[in-house]
Each structure stands twice: as structure tokens, then as C-alpha cells.
């Protein structure tokens, strides 16, 4: 499982960081960092990752294979 982040449309609501804090964080300027960029989501993080995808109010997170 991989996640594609559409950074251009991200509005930094940060709800994903509350669902999956090991995968997503906001820096001091509230810019999103996705910590598994370019690699597979670890198996023990996949359920949280999907919850994060579902929590995004602007739907900028997408599961890709």
C-alpha cells in the first residue's frame, strides 16, 4: 500500500496527523509532511493510514498500489 498526497490541494487542516501521527505531521508553518513518501506504508500502519485518508475533508490523500 502506498499513499499519494496532492500537496497542491492540501489545506493543512491536519486531521490526518491526528489519525496517523507516525505517517503525517505538520511543521511550524503548518505544511504537511508525509513520512512514507516513495515507500510502502508499514503493515502496522495501514489501518491508521486508511483512517487518515478518510478523515481528510478535502480528499487530497489517495491510496495507490
Amino acid at each position, binding site marked *: 500500500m502506498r499513499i499519494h498526497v*496532492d500537496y497542491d*490541494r492540501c*489545506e*493543512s*487542516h*491536519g*486531521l490526518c*496527523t*491526528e489519525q496517523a501521527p507516525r505517517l503525517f505531521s*505538520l511543521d511550524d*508553518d*503548518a*505544511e504537511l509532511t508525509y513520512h512514507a513518501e516513495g515507500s510502502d506504508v508499514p503493515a502496522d500502519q495501514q*489501518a491508521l493510514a*486508511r*483512517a487518515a*485518508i*478518510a*478523515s*481528510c*475533508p*478535502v*480528499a*487530497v490523500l*489517495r*491510496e495507490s498500489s
Partner: protein
Amino acid sequence: MTRPGAVVIVGESIAGLTAARELRARGYDGTITMVGREPEGAYARPPLSKDVLRDAAAEPGLAYPCADLDLQHVRSPAVALDCPARTVTTEDGRAVSYDALLVATGAAARRLAAPGQRGELVLRTLADARAIRERMDLAASVVVVGAGFLGMEVASAAVARGMEVTVIDTEPPLRRLLGPYLSGRLAARAAAAGVRTHQVAGPVGLVGDPVDGVALPDGRTLTADLVVTCAGDVPAVDWLSGTPLANPAGIAIDERCSTSLPGVFAAGDVARLGPPSDRGTGRTPFWSSAVAQGKVAAASMLGQESPLLPIDDYFWTEVLGLSVKVAGPLPPDGGPTSVEGDVDAGDALLRWDRPGLPTTVVAFGRKVPVGRLRAIARDGDTTTEEKP
């Protein structure tokens, strides 16, 4: 309650989908049936009044993945609830049995058209957004009825598309939700962008069949290529008629999202925690509140305790390209007690601190993480350099 044999969730909403995900996360491996009216399944609604009105290319990104949740889908509207028999009947004639039921049917747009009057445009669903966008493709002017956050978002999209925009309301823009200070600032911003706001003394009516104008209380009529009604929402309880839940003010829930009926829970825009009210303790039809309530409802359906409160008053809107994010009680009265940054430049953090009460905090065009806003609203903030 013991573990339910069958869970039915009515409404492919964010509240409904969040509940389904939380049920699985809590280890429930029984049947979950999602009953929904949208042929395309669950999708994100906040972008409908923003990106989707401007660009069809925004549509494919809206769908919510739920293939991993092993859900049974019934894509037909629920039309009746039989509580003694514990079944939900759908428009296509199915009877779906439940041990635990979550009502997450959301709200519908409040309409102003007279009976039989055609062509009223509202914005609540993807189909609504498509219809308005396609009309905007051909229109040069729009009248928006309602200067709440939805009305101002539609106005913002129309301005971005180069249209002549008039917004009508009995109150100044966003006044009911955001209070006098923010209303004044945002009204000035809208005016500078060319939006005309028209404050009227009482209710307006729609004229034309199909609708092509608005009748004002002073007897005049405003016409435009496009008229969009953004006059609030009504909880979607029609299908519950004949049950104690069919309250037009919303389904009363407690802090576990339980209703007055055994085995029936409610969450999201359809639900109301506390007495009917326009503000504070009544319905909180916000995204984050729907997410919070979906989670609490899932725990309750399994007979488990939830550590979460079923209300989350994080809210945001976008006015003429300026993002406004709010946490804490609404509307804030008077002016802010502290201002960090530059309000005129659209880059500020505003606080309304009141002794003994939760703080209202607003990120006005400034990117501030929701966690920090919630922390400020909850217990004041220790990281800000601003003195209270």
C-alpha cells in the same frame, strides 16, 4: 449491549463512513450494511462548494475508498424505519434487518421555491454542484440567496469565474456564524472583490418558472442568469416519519450518540445533542463534528465506552480566496481580545479569551494546524508569543 449481529448504517456520509471504519478498527467483524442514496457512493462534500464549482477536474478526487472495510452496499434511499421489527425499508423495496442501527442521513438543503415552481438551484450533493457549475459555464450574473458560509463560498467561486455576484440576506455576511467582527472584515473583503451584498428586511421569494429572480420584501425583483439558494439545511428525517425520531430540529442524541429508541444511534448533521438551538448546544453540522460523532456512535453500537466527546467545533470556510479556520464556541462576540499578525493582509491569529469560558480562536488566512487551534480553544495556548 452484547456484540450486535448485524449493523446497518443509513447514510453514506462522512459520519456513516467514519463509523464503519471505527467499527472495524474496534475489531467488529460482523455484517455492516451501508444504505445510501448516492449512486456513486461516499464522497467528500466540503470541496463541492469550492473546487468543484470551478473545475470538473476536481470531481475524480472526491470519492472515499472503503473497499477495505468489507461493507455490504444498498444504494437506494431508506424510506421507512420499523422499530419494533428492527428493519429499514429502501426505495427499491428491500427490507434490511439490524441489531444496531446508525442514522447518518445528514441534512438536505432548505428550499424556497413555491410548490410546483421549477429550477431552484441548491448545493448539497455532487449532482447539485455539477448542475450549478454547468449553469455557471453559460452565465454572466448570479444572485445568491443567503450570506452564510455556503452562500459566501458560492459567491467566491462565482467571482473567481468572472461573474457579477449579488448576495442577499437579512443579516450581514457570515454574521450569524462568525459574529460582528469577522463578518465586518469578510464583508469588506467581499466588497473589494466586487461582490454586492444586499441586506433585506425580511424573507425573500423566488420568481419565475423556472426560477430566474428573487422577490425582495420592498416589492422589487432582482433577476440574474442564475439564482442559487443557500438558505440553510434541514435534518434529513423525512424517512423516519411515524417514529419518535422524526423531529424536524434533528434527532436528539446523548453523549453516546444514543437516541430514544433501543439499538438506534445517530451521528452527523442529522443529529442534535441537547435542546434545539441555532448555536452552542444544538446541532453542530460541521465536518469534524460528524467525524467525532461517527467514532462515538461506533463504540456505542458495540457497547463500548468512547473516550471522545461527540462534539468537535473545528470549522473552516473560504471567503474570496481567504481561508478562515475556527475552533471554539461560535459566534464570538465583539472584537478579538488578541491579534497576532496582520488582519488586513489576511495573515493573522485572532483570539477571543473570556474568563472561565472556552476560548474562540481563528486562523485568518494563516496556516495553523488544527491541533494547535483546538489546544488554544480548550485550555489557552502556551506557545503563542501574544499576551492575552
